[in-house]
């Protein structure tokens, strides 16, 4: 059960994820990200404020785009992760590969 919204703003696009990303809903996340990246925005902010749970399949989706984002020089920053969700990213080591910050302001600051 996940709701994903894409909000386009000046210079960056916000991907707002709400709900739980499990094995089945990770497909939606994958589709949203693929579509977003295909549009080649300069930066992507992922709003995880409403993200309650993410399974390894969901983490796999983020992981799978890291290389592509690098090669296309698109910056991606995740913000607003709850402690629990953040912990899942940390354990897996994804915090070493992705930029995770607390707020949207911090995320925007990273872009400039």
């Amino acid at each position, binding site marked *: 059960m996940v709701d994903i919204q894409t909000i386009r703003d000046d210079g960056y696009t916000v991907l707002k994820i709400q709900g739980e990303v499990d*094995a089945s809903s*990770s497909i939606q996340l*994958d589709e949203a990200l693929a579509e977003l990246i295909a549009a080649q925005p300069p930066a992507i902010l992922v709003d995880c404020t409403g993200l309650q749970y993410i399974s*390894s*399949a969901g*983490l*796999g*989706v983020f*992981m*799978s785009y890291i290389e592509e984002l690098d090669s296309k020089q698109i910056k991606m920053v995740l913000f607003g992760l709850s402690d*629990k969700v953040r912990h899942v990213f940390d*354990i*897996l*080591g*994804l915090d*070493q*590969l992705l930029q995770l910050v607390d707020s949207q302001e911090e995320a925007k600051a990273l872009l400039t």
Partner: protein
Amino acid sequence: MSAKSIIRIALALAILAWLAMVATDMVVIFDLRNPVNMGIEPQVPNIFFVIYVLAVFVFYKYRIGAAQSDNFIDLLWKIFITGLLTTIVSLALTGVDVVLGGTHLISHPLVVDVLYLIRLGLLLAFAISTFVVWKRLILYQKSKLLLRGWMVFEYLLLATLLSIFVPFDFTRYLFFVVLPFAVVLSGNMKWVAFLSFKQKWKSLLLLVLTLLYLIYFYVNISEIRGTHPYLQVPGNMQFVLSLLVFTALYAVFSLLVILFNLPTSSVFEQKLEEVVNFQRLSQSVQTEQSESQIYNILLNSAVRATQADAAWIEVKINDKEKMFRHHIGSETIMNIKNYFKNSKGNDPFIFDHPERPVRHARSLRKLRGVPFASMVVFPLVMSGEQTGLIVLLKELREGFNRDLIDIAQTFVNQACISVEGFRLMAEALATERYKEELKIAQRVQRQLLPAALHGGPDFEIAAFSQAADEVGGDYYDTFQINEHQTALIIGDVSGKGTSAAFHMSQMRGIFHGLAQMNLPPEEFLLRANRAISSGLDKTSFITISYYVIDSAARQVTFARAGHCPTLYYNYETGKASYFTNKGLGLGMVRNKQYKNYIQSRTFSYKPGDILLLYTDGITEARNRQGEEFGYERLLKLVEKHAGLPAHDIRQQLIDALYEFCGHRELDDDYTVIIVKFK
């Protein structure tokens, strides 16, 4: 007695009765013309006449009446053959008459009598066979009332037949009772409706011939009786007349009904065909037909039902556009579609509200180069989604009236239901196959986990692993590197089903291959990452923790590849804590950079210390309120039961976990390994 023997006996009886009738009648005639009295009453030939009639009736009743087939043409054909044979014989007799005409022999009363009785016998046989067939036709789809009426009619005929033995003459009046029955019963013509157009023509021909035979016989016999008055006996002419009137009446009625039915028969036939086609559509799901076959049936049925000149179906099957065409080329289809695309107004091939199936009818009159003048388009709607369309075309202007469109719509709806059913069935089959696959994967996976773990000289080890209903991706194993070194691994493969089991088996191979090389844990992870990355799809990864326990140095060195942090219990302080060395899942960075993301760690152990390895199924297990078991609860549990042997700690953990969840079924796989140092 079997029907066959009854037929034989009846035939023999009829022949004997006829012979006896001839013999006795000759005697009677001889008596009449000569003063000698042979002592035979004139009634005696009549008795044989009655026996003959009854025997012939039984014969045909069993021969024709018992046949089960409802093939009306067959029945009519049988009468026709009987009529033909009897007529040929009768004509042959006439031929003999003509050739030998005027000779003394042929005009002798006894010879005349024999020839007359042959003709009478033939006429009766033919009339009775016709009677039996008419009975079947009249009683086709009978009602109770009709059956009763028929019984009365048969008894009346029998009464007429037997009336010759009654001294007073009321047969004349009986005829007037029989006649209305014959007329009313002749009104039953249900069988005509079931004849096809062609069959109706055949029936007409056969009925006309039957009528001609009847007339010929009657005229023939009346003529002979007229010229030879001594032939009054035997025979019950009232009965013969009743029989002939009835058979002729029904033949005439049938003839007229068929004649009047001819123009409408094509409509009836069409309706019948619609029903049959409809049935085929409904049944196509049950038999193993492909979706394409259902569309082909729909195309043919719709074309025939609406008498369209051409048609096509466009539909998506497994996300591929497919086209089924009937008497129309792709070029013409393109022409028509382009015409509407470029013209003003709504495109009939686009349905704005596919959830509501609304058909589009259009005129093609203004479209040059295409032989069609009218068109109707139906959307194919399955599970509330439009998956295609069917287009019917006619050369006539306004060729599709409301009735035809409604019929076609019914076919379209039924076809959609059939396809939907077909797809559901295919899906169910696929699910079944998937379940089988899972079972195999489960079996493979169980075999991948070790039956027993290697304890060491100074530690004991206990493990427990449970997969959720699907195939799990948890893996653990031990390997004795040398006398004092033991390798220990715990891992979790992302993804589920066969691919997870497959990656797990790869991981096992890598573990057993690399462990014996006695590599430092960091190096182990680096090599394992390189080995496993090429085989993983881009969203999959594996988390592991790799430990080397050195009993000589009483030290553990380990590295973590994104796996849950290890819990360590210190006996001296009585406190447990999680190691926080950094790590990254295998397959997440698929190059040499990987080594920058991991960190190995070494610690010394003392007796009573505990190492707890687990997978996220434990910490993420939820209770009914949605609360997670969590790290803190696990830590406290270990602290609480640290004094117990490894096996008992394991049991305490499992019990606590189940108690927390409130049930024994967990949503995820979970594994726990306890190493307790001595």
